[in-house]
């Protein structure tokens, strides 16, 4: 059952071959059996899950089901879900029970999806390895000594180990795509503004975007249909007509123009990652696509720009954690300032404190123009590079990550080295474009390689079709780590 796609599971539910309660129990059992070795899921509430599944069964019996009704979904622990502990991977929120639902959660609930639990993540989504979580690192299902990527590492590892058919994630600088690549699953970061940020614990508000993680492009399209939509409670939510993201699936790729940025195939990429990507591009040529070299000359600046903008916005967003209204409060303190300082020093881990410091510095008196405004200007140059590239191609392709999964602990002592993990993903967030990572083979050590597809604004339906056609011609997305097969 764990190998089936969402569409297949939906079919079984509709034809009464299984119930939603049975499905929920099946995945809860897999979590009980495998999660101890992965640490991918950090909160379960079987009673709530089974109650939601029973409600889904009643809805199916009443003939009011839609595709996702009865499908179990794991939520990254950045999404508030009413009545569920919601920690954001932080000691600060270790005991926080969300008093309301994130828009994305409410939308999936309304479709009848069943909340299966909450997944581990880098603290406040700040990390590329899932090692900054207060609840300990997630392990990569392909090899337990390796990181799963981050920050949506728990969601990606859960899909790789088939602990759930679907999971949510968020992507500020690559946090859906990079773990999807390192775990050998599919993940989509939509165009900025199409999924509401309401109830998604804020990291860098001008970059944060929610998206789905699943086993196939078709599953991503089904999830995206339910997750996105205008929400007045998010001031950056875009008012657009609803789309059916499955509508382009199956269209031929004849004449598709694939842009290959020369910056994506530079010396920094692991050679067998480059080989897997080249083989994937060759597959696209067999499917009728042409390739054209494009250039993103300012891409190298995306990391410096990101490490100004994201920490600046984070330092502002995280100012709310004061030990007064909710979250951790230090046990011992003197005056009010002392309470704030001790609470925040105890509640935040090292990476979060570091980024608050960077952000506070670049926003402080005398530095705002030199850092924040400067970074926002270069952000426009980066977006303009993509606009120029999309005049010559329909989609940009390249590796999602310069390397496959790396050893736990191997980059934690050097933040700059860790930051470089996201060299191919960050520019997409800065420009606000949609990006997708799909499995595209393995390196010499048998670890999954992710192919990144970047489209123009609002091109999700087409991007998903490009991935879907590739998945019709290959079976990389069907591979799973042997240890979790039965």
């Amino acid at each position, binding site marked *: 059952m764990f190998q089936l796609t969402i569409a297949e599971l939906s079919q079984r539910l509709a034809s009464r071959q299984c119930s939603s309660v049975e499905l929920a129990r099946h995945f809860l059992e897999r979590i009980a059996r495998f999660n101890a070795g992965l640490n991918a899921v950090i909160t379960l509430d079987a009673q709530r899950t089974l109650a939601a599944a029973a409600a889904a069964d009643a809805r199916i019996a009443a003939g009011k089901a839609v595709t996702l009704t009865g499908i179990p979904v794991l939520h990254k622990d950045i999404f508030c879900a009413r009545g569920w502990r919601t920690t954001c991977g932080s000691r600060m929120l270790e005991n926080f029970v969300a008093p309301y639902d994130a828009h994305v959660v409410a939308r999936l609930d309304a479709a009848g999806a069943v909340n299966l639990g909450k997944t581990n993540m880098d603290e406040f989504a700040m990390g590329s390895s899932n090692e900054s979580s207060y609840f300990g690192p997630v392990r990569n299902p392909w090899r337990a000594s390796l990181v799963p990527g981050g920050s949506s590492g728990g969601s990606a590892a859960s899909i790789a180990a088939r602990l759930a058919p679907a999971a949510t994630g968020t992507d500020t600088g690559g946090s859906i795509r990079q773990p999807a690549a390192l775990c050998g699953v599919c993940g989509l970061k939509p165009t900025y503004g199409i999924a509401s940020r309401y109830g998604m614990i804020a990291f860098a508000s001008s970059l944060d975007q929610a998206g789905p993680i699943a086993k196939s492009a078709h599953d991503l399209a089904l999830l995206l249909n339910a997750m996105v939509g205008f929400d007045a409670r998010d001031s950056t939510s875009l008012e657009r007509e609803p789309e059916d993201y499955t509508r382009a699936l199956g269209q031929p790729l004849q004449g598709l123009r694939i842009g290959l940025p020369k910056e994506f195939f530079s010396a920094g990429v692991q050679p067998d990652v480059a080989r897997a990507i080249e083989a994937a591009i060759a597959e696209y040529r067999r499917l009728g696509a042409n390739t054209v070299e494009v250039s993103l000359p300012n891409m190298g600046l995306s990391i410096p720009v990101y490490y100004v903008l994201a920490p600046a916005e984070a330092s502002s967003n995280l100012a709310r954690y004061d030990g007064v209204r909710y979250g951790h409060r230090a046990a011992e303190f003197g005056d009010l300032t002392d309470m704030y300082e001790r609470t925040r020093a105890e509640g935040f881990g090292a990476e979060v404190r570091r980024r608050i410091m960077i952000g506070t510095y670049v926003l402080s008196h005398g530095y705002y123009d030199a850092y924040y405004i400067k970074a926002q200007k270069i952000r426009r140059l980066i977006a303009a590079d993509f606009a120029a590239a999309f005049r010559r191609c329909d989609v940009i392709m390249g590796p999602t990550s310069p390397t496959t999964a790396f050893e736990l602990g191997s980059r934690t002592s050097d933040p700059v080295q860790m930051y470089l993990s996201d060299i191919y993903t960050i520019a997409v967030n800065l*420009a606000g474009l949609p990006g997708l990572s799909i499995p595209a083979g393995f390196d010499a050590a048998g670890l999954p390689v992710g192919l990144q597809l970047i489209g123009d604004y609002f091109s999700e339906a087409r991007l998903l079709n490009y991935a879907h056609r590739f998945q019709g011609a290959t079976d990389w997305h069907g591979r799973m780590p042997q240890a979790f097969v039965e």
Partner: protein
Amino acid sequence: MALTLDDVRRVAQLARLRQNDAQAQAMLEELNRIFALIGEMQAVDTSAVAAMSHPRDVAQRLRPDRVTETDRRDALLALAPLSEAGLYLVPKVIE
């Protein structure tokens, strides 16, 4: 331009983050490595470029000025580390 230990202490105070001397020293070294990376921005001429705050250059949406939230005082106060009689409790600020 490198940061100094005084910068680190000042910023930690602005950010309300308690740190001891060893932590401040370690933070200084980490921040200086990161700012060396960030410094690559300064080589770019941006004199003719406008800052970009939203990828779609969308302006903030306005809404009518009316109450939309319901009263959930008790549920929200229940999340506080310390509250009493409908109020958040903090250390005394005025003697």
